[in-house]
């Protein structure tokens, strides 16, 4: 939890109850900010290596032991086509639930908890196929663009079919 920054937590709970807003966990990959809905996040932990999985795409960094269960780790930078993350102990794994499964996302750092209004979510502009494939939408927060990650799309097709 060391990379956890919760300075926004108290201030922005305005219309959570109304169902018009949602809270995101925002994390960084390089300069780019991405977010996932906070309810999907199970755990945030420091990177401590993973056992590589054969016959999977590069962006599957391997599997880790999460208190007795085996959880796969996806390198989000590599998933967005930016090459493998050069991991250090300061890198962070965000464990999330996708459907019934738990998966970990390797990111550079967790930056913030954001409360956004659902009506502020914009469609992903056509053009960049990787972005429109892997993002659900884009919101602007503090004049920064936050990509909302489509977890299902990230996870699907990780295995190399022969």
């Amino acid at each position, binding site marked *: 939890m060391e990379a956890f920054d919760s300075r926004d937590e108290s201030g922005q709970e305005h219309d959570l109850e109304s169902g018009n807003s949602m809270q995101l966990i925002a994390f960084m990959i390089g300069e780019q900010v991405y977010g996932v809905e906070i309810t999907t996040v199970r755990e945030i932990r420091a990177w401590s290596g993973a*056992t590589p999985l054969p016959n999977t795409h590069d962006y599957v960094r391997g599997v880790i032991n999460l208190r007795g269960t085996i*959880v796969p780790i996806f390198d989000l930078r590599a998933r967005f086509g930016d090459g493998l993350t050069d991991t250090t102990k300061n890198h962070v794994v965000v464990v999330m639930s996708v459907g019934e499964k738990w998966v970990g996302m390797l990111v550079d750092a967790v930056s913030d908890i954001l409360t956004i209004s659902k009506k502020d979510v914009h469609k992903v502009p056509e053009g960049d196929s990787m972005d429109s494939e892997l993002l659900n939408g884009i919101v602007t927060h503090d004049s920064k663009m936050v990509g909302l990650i489509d977890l299902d799309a990230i996870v699907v097709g990780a295995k190399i079919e022969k």
Partner: protein
Amino acid sequence: MSELDEFKATYFEECSELLGDLEEEFAAIEEGDRDTERLNAVFRAIHSIKGGAGAFGFNQLVEFAHSFETLLDFVRDGRVELTDDVVTLCIRSIDLVADFVGAARDGEELASDFGEEELARFKLLSGEDEEEPMEEFDIDFTPVMVNVGDDDGELPAVPTSDINDETLAGEDENDSFEQAPLAEGHRYWKVDFTPHYELYERANDPLLLFRELGTLGEVEVKAHLVKTPKLKEFDPFGIYCKWEIVLRNEDVSKEDIAEVFEFVEGDCELSISQVMAEADIDSDLVGFEEDMAPEAQTLETQPDQQQELQQELQQDLQHKAEEEAADESMLSLADLAAEIEPAPAPPVREENLVEENKPEQEKAKKAAAKAPAVQSIRVDLDKVDRVVNMVGELVITQSMLNQQMDDKIKAQYQELVRGVEVLAQTTRGLQDAVMAIRAQPVKSVFSRMPRLVRELAKKTDKKIRLEMVGEYTEIDKTIIEQLSDPLTHMIRNSADHGVETPEKRLAAGKSETGTIQLSAEQAGGNIIIAVEDDGAGINRERVLNLARERGVVGPDQQLSDEQIDELVFAPGFSTADGVSDISGRGVGMDVVISNIKKIGGSVHVRSKPGKGTRMILRLPLTLAVLDVMLVEAGDGPYVIPLSSIVETMQCDRADFGFAPSGRRVLQIRGEYVQVIDLVTRFEMTTKVPDNKRFVVLCEGEGSTKVALIVDEIIGQQQVVIKSLEENFERIDGIAGGTILGNGEVALIVDVAGLKQTPEQQSAA
């Protein structure tokens, strides 16, 4: 009604056990074993099924089971001869009972004429006209008057008889109730009901019976304490209670009442009589109570207590009761009846209630009582699994501790070393004990097979004998559950394709009757289950031709005899000339393989032309913990199941060669073995030079060997298998994951899944 649901679940569990027993017993009976004990056993089983069904109101099942039971009873006392026909009918009927039970469990309604044919045959065989007591009663009923004094010698005949459907009829013939016509006016039914200890043991509940009676008319239930001992001798599990029920409905027949108690016959003393006036009842009662008084005098009377409370209390206590204690504390109704004398009437509702709440006294009594007769408990498999999993983790933690202890620690902390050693021992013991809980004899699967063979023999017009060896070999329950389908397919295959027709057998100089042997034995960490027939063996020429025709085998590929034999397990493969309704569609043998692989086992087949075929299942003893060898390949740790490893050697000592296709092969003891380099197979890189690497020779699917090349061999250990699919998906060549002592994940190599097809290899 969650409690009722629980009872139901227990009942259905029992039913499936009983049905299994029935099958087994009838298999023996069909073999010609006409031991009366067997007949008694089947009778009891059907009776129990019927009893529970009655309690839950599964009427179709009750009716069918009742007729079945009647027939069995007649068979038992020789009134119906146990011909082959009757046996066949019975076996068929077991299926039907199973269907009824299944329908009841799933809450389905079967067609009203389901099983009617069998039902009709039961009735025909048991000569319904003379022997259906229930119907007879309806016609010939005469009101009777009870004369308790005379019942002395007669009544015990009822309770002491075996669980016996005839009890009703017997009662009717034998009882000495005076058949006195009653005066016009008020007539009541009086039911004296004294439960035996067994009644509670069979999970019957008087309360339910009384409620059922209540549906017949207005009832008044009075509980009486029979022979209640002194407080300090009071056994909380004893039976001190009897009931008298007055049913105020003249239109009800004696049989109607008897029917309510049908399922507790033999487990209670019961007398049903019609009386004229209230006075009679009271005076009977009075005498009864008075008679009890001497024994009960030290007890406090607590008139305010509700009888239901007492009833329930007694039941609860008696569920766990010890049989002997119960017998001692019980007084038969007949004895009582003999002693009854008129006496002044105490208030009818008054109850004697034992001070059951004093724990010291319970304790004292318990200590005095002999060891309880309870020998088994039913536990949810889930709960056992939780223990198994935890023990698995414990085993691993323990082995991790062991690894952490270097020589320095060992020299410095000897007490610690000793502690860890004890821990290791205890953990091992705990693991064995837990595994033993899950282990069951394979008999539960084997016992379904005789019948299968019988049916197959009939359908194929062959003569087949099934021999079973080692059916008490114990194996994990989960594995047993997975065994049924594969074994069925294997035996079908043996009966259909293996064993020849009697004519062919005679022509080949064999005995007319073919033999299929089903055997189980433990061999090291494995259970070996074999199905062996003395039939014609696999026709290799035809198998190979068919395989080439269907493209399973390439036109130029040369196969050894063993490899050809293994082809029978290829998907969609069948050598049968005609597709019979038994086998031959080519589904089946590949099911065997996939089911067995799923539980970590392997299948082999060996055949000798003209002599027979032997199919062997090799199964792990348990699914929870796996003995493995830890190796390193590329940048990751891998584990290989020890059960599949034949030997290991250093690469520079291995004799590699190249097959004509250019593939690398390992030559070992005159055998050429396919080589798979884990690093290249998994598309990794390694810095370990070739000559420093290791060969792990494994036995893959169908006993063909495969040589795995790894970077390093680290050692043996036990691991708990973890699913990879739980959070990811299945990966070819990987059977799952496991967590090592240092918390790292290691992948389990699926040796059989690693083997590449020839195409993949040539492409590589």
